[in-house]
């Protein structure tokens, strides 16, 4: 077997795609890249309104510690009510005329 010592593997070539200083919004279809100011303790997604508390693993590596509960809970409850309401409207009515 010939081993090419210099050739980079797929994993190594993907290293260039790493980003520091940013977190991604946790809302699945949003996933906006958010860049909080260094040391900030929370960040709000401008796209979907979700808010998060932050922890800094290193000065260049923030992570989402958790949601700002009151804000995201309100968004969740409103969304649930809207989706369930839409589902109820869509469902065929039972019984005859």
């Amino acid at each position, binding site marked *: 077997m010939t081993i090419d010592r210099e050739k980079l593997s797929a*994993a190594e070539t993907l290293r260039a*795609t790493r980003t520091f200083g940013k977190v991604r919004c946790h*809302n699945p279809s949003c996933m906006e890249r958010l860049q909080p100011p260094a040391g900030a303790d929370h960040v709000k997604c401008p796209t979907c309104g979700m808010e998060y508390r932050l922890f800094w*693993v*290193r000065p260049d590596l923030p992570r*989402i510690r958790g949601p700002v*509960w009151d804000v995201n*809970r309100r968004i969740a409850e409103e969304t649930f009510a809207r*989706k369930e309401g839409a589902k109820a409207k869509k469902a065929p009515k039972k019984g005859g005329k």
Partner: protein
Amino acid sequence: MALNRKIAYIDLSTGEIETRPIPLDVRKKFLGGRGLDAYLLYNHTKKGCDPLGPDNVLLISGGILTATCASATARTHVMAKSPLTGLLGSANMGGFFAPELAWAGFHHLVIKGKAEKPVYIWIHNGEIEIRDAANLWGKTTTETQWTIREELGDEDVKCAVIGPAGENLVRFANVMTGIKNAAGRTGMGCVMGSKNLKAVAARGTMDIEIAHPVDALEYNKRFIDQITSAKVNKTQGTLGTPFIWGATNSWGGVRCRNFQYNQCEYADDIEPERLDEIATETIGPYHMTGCFGCQVHCRAQYKIPSGPYAGRYDEGPEYTSLGAFGGEPDCKNAVTVLTGNHLVDQYGIDNLEIGSIISWAMELYELGILTSKDTDGLDLRFGNDEALLEMVDRICYRKGWLGDTLADGGILASEKIGKNSFEYLIQVKGMNNLHSDERATPALALNIATASRGSDHLRSRPAIDLYHLPEEVLRKIYSNPVRYDGPLSSEHTSYEGKPWQVFWQENCFMAVDCLGICKYHTVFLGATLPNFEDWPKVLYYNTGLEMTPEEIWEVAERCNTMERLFNLREGLKRDDLKKGDMLNHRYFDEPCRRGAPDVIGKTIDREEFKKMIDEFYEHKGLDENGVVKPETLKRLGLKKEPSHLL
């Protein structure tokens, strides 16, 4: 060299011990670790054997790279027929045991029979003895290890042991090493207990010759740099795996109250940063430690800050303990998590299974299916921390009707409890799920439904699916080493291309389990971590064994098929809720109520799920019933199994 490590056959009924080399052609087909164990299990057990009888075999092994210069080759694998599921039993742990076993001359142990009285096995520099363990019986996992070290007069002896849970034949008892390293799924400690085997102790000073030492060290440096520079591993090395639970809870991907909810709200007190703040010995970067040969250091050390166990030292907690003693029973108290974690480590029991089964019992209690008569007066409601910890004790020691009943695992317990209790049991193939909620993530749902050892994330979970990676990045990973031109989607709520991702991940995880490398050193939580292309170099430089990425992929496929053959032989049926590739009805019928807006309302679509299974089977070379096709057996060289080569 690594390839001359032997296999030992130990019969506890007769006391006979035989050692043999592992032929190179067997190595090339199965490499080692979990893959070779799957071959041995299929060959050394008969259909329908009693998991707790002498005919079941207990396999303990290291991977082919264990104890070499390769990074993080610390994993010990344990396999047997599972007393929890009646199917494949398989569990994997970190620590230092497998390297010590390799330095003592062995990569694989095949333990059969049953000792008349408690014993332990002592392995040292090619020698194996069976010794009396009467003085060890009843001891906790750490007491057992220190007693053995004292008895043998060597503090460097490494042990794989069971605690009281294994002795009491709790069907989800662990095999453990060190403080908290647990081969903790499918009840391997119960099998060990059924054989009256309290421990396997190893100490070795037999050198492992490295085939190309300079190349091995140079390449390992490059490999380590790739691993330690990843963001995910920097975070792991600071907060440990609890950071995953915290992040997942943030968007609504964890289970709460036995899967009634997909988020544990206001759980600030059990976030990893909070644990770091309150533990006497902090969990932060200066108190992190690691397994043999690992630079990630994802294991926290702590002392319990208050409560009845204040001052006790332990390690972790992991993601699973946050789920088991925090989110799932809705006990948002850091001291409860740290205490629960300590108890399961000492008793030697699967934190994931016990947290799930107690939460199931809590829901049954709130529904009135279980009454205070069944609980001997214990108020088993969600959020009752004291009741949660009391139940850990009762299950491990089989105290009271409920403790004894739950100790047999969910399916047997549901038969005893009756009514419609089974409907609320969140399991696949008889094993409870990780404390994650997969209703918004079809790939992850497919993973747990089809995992070979029952509902599990460490068999085929494409966790990077959650990162919204661009399609070109996904294609770079998932079209290698085998070409894949089908669809791939960046959307983790999509069904598109997910069967291939799960199939790829299944082979990736099997490959590292055969090599003996930790999963945090491959594409699991990080897209830029090593995979198939990187392993041939590590393998060649360390062992001299030449294999291409495609050949390693084929080994992984072969070993996964071997596990499938075992499960099919023991009764796996595609849509069987107790023994099949099927999910609890809640995945399909009850929508997510909490978390991020796009998670709200999500369920798994039954038709789409069926299509995913069909496609997954096609990739694996299975027919529509999930049975291995003859042409697949031929392609993978498995037509003559069981072949009894070893």
